């Protein structure tokens, strides 16, 4: 089922959680709402579920306005961050809850409920835990039970609030893959909220990046990672180096140095002297030894971390970029070939650069 949100606004006191947000979630997709805490992503999810009501705007489920439908009638499956399992009920009773509270006319017989619950428990591969209580389960198991419980009522959409937030790193990785496989099996329209970019990029069909109650960018994981639309997205997705400088003849000047990428000048259409911030990922920077030449930004190597396949080189800016810190990823081979050493003065030259005008500077 498709979900649309139209011009949603939500205010908590003086804090604006959502500021005119409109989004489409096509049928059958697994979408991640990604952003830092306080960006409004959980509020949006709760509004879609009907747990929170928007100050203005509407939520359309399958084209129908559901803004005034109570959460219990919306038929959404919601998986809570801390699972919200009923601790006085066994795993079986938890999963059966949604079926047992149906109005008498719609309520399946106890035998049907039993069969259905066991099917769901098998789906989440935890049938053997049916008689346990939530307190006896591990975090990952609770998560899967919460999911089975949400699925029991055959929801039209599945909403997950930070589904892996409370788990340790190893379990989190496993569950991510498992959720992706489950989605490929069920193909139910799903939205999950996360602040973990790796999680969003790895699991989702589509990523919605949010900040301060605004949608910053929507796209496939590859699109948003490779072509960030705003400085926020650039900074939020993956490690990145910032160069603060100003526009000059279509180039970026950082202090005295020209941030130059090889021969082709940047086609900047900014006013002369406008403050800009330029982004380059660690693997998009090259290190040129020595202070010679006018190419690139001067820096000094502060540390070389060369224990993996790739080496990470940390640098401190000097002259115009002093006070800034940079990070470059090279292969170990390159490090050895260039004979880089800590304390060495070098110049940084980007192979790829994205420049944004700095607003409010």
């Amino acid at each position, binding site marked *: 089922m498709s979900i649309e949100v139209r011009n949603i606004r939500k205010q908590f006191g003086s804090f604006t959680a959502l500021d005119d947000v409109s989004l489409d979630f096509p049928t059958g997709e697994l979408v991640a709402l990604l952003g830092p805490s306080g960006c409004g992503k959980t509020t949006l999810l709760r509004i879609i579920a*009907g*747990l*929170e*009501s928007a100050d203005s705007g509407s939520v359309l489920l399958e084209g129908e306005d559901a803004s005034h439908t*109570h*959460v*219990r009638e919306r038929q959404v499956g919601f998986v809570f961050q801390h699972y919200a399992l009923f601790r006085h009920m066994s795993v079986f009773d938890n999963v059966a809850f949604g079926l047992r509270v149906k109005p008498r006319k719609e309520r399946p017989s106890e035998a049907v409920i039993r069969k259905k619950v066991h099917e769901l428990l098998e789906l989440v591969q935890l049938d053997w835990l049916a008689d346990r209580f939530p307190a006896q389960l591990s975090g990952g198991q609770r998560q899967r039970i919460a999911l089975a419980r949400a699925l029991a009522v055959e929801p039209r959409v599945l909403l997950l609030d930070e589904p892996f937030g409370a788990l340790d790193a190893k379990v989190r990785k496993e569950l991510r893959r498992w959720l992706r496989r489950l989605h490929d099996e069920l193909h139910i329209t799903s939205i999950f909220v996360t602040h973990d970019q790796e999680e969003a990029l790895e699991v989702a069909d589509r990523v919605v990046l949010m900040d301060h109650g605004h949608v910053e960018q929507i796209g496939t994981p590859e699109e948003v990672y490779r072509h960030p639309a705003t400085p926020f997205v650039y900074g939020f997705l993956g490690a990145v180096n910032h160069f603060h400088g100003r526009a000059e003849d279509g180039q970026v000047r950082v202090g005295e140095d020209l941030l130059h990428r090889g021969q082709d000048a940047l086609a900047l259409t900014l006013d002369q002297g406008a403050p800009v911030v330029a982004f380059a990922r660690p693997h998009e920077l090259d290190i040129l030894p020595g202070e010679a030449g006018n190419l690139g930004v001067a820096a000094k190597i502060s540390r070389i971390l060369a224990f993996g396949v790739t080496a990470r080189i940390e640098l401190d800016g000097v002259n115009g970029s002093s006070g800034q810190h940079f990070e470059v990823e090279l292969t170990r081979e390159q490090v050895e070939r260039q004979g880089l050493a800590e304390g060495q003065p070098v110049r940084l030259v980007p192979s790829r650069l994205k420049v944004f005008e700095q607003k409010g500077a």
Partner: protein
Amino acid sequence: MAGAATTLHWHGDHASKYESRSATREAPWVKGLILGLSLTFFAVFLLLPLVAVFVEALRKGLETYWLALVEPDALSAIKLTLITAAIALPVNLVFGVAAAWAIAKFEFRGKQLLTTLIDLPFSVSPVVAGLIYVLIFGAQGWFGPWLAEHDIRIVFAVPGIVLATVFVTFPFVARELIPLMQAQGKEEEEAAVVLGANGWQTFWHVTLPNIKWGLLYGVILCNARAMGEFGAVSVVSGHIRGQTNTMPLHVEILYNEYNFAAAFAVASVLALLALVTLVIKTWVEWKAAQAQAAIEK
């Protein structure tokens, strides 16, 4: 346990959160019904008796009211009540701190049992609490003959009143401090010891600042009970006017003599004391919540 169901705890008001969310609110008529019933119940059973005390006290005018309070028997009852509280309070305060220190900061066998035994006086009927001292120090009691020989009076005299009061107020401070000190753990004290502080310094500079609001809370509740105790004191007092009458006992005597205005006048002083207790109690809860919030920031 009984009598101390109230522990230091600030009820932050989150009602608007529940009321604004569709999943956690009731239909307006349900809300109206619950509010209506519970507040009517509150008004009839709690508010009305309180108001009645003051109205009855002033029924015959301010002068009668005043005379009832400054009459010598009333003054001596006030004095005895103050003396009793002045003894029971510090004694139980010292005990409460010692017990909480042992129970909250150390591991030993029988701890659970000890905690339960400390609660015991709360579950004993005040009348039984009075009776036990009569059985020990009364004329027919264990020490009765010996005390009579040495012309020492405990029962039907001030010491008996103090003893019975100490018994019924016994758990208040300990009850308040034990959970509080358990929750705080002992890391801070251990850090102080590692830094070279001695026992007294550790307690004074580290423990006490952490528990001061809980301590004050326990003392206030203890004081209210000490000044207001009736049943236990009634058994051991002997009701000798001007000598072994505390304020609650004085109220009883006046009431039984159909001197209602005077009885309610003295009762109104006790009711005022109760209100002051509640005000200080609320203030302490608020201060403690602030202190907690400051720590968590």
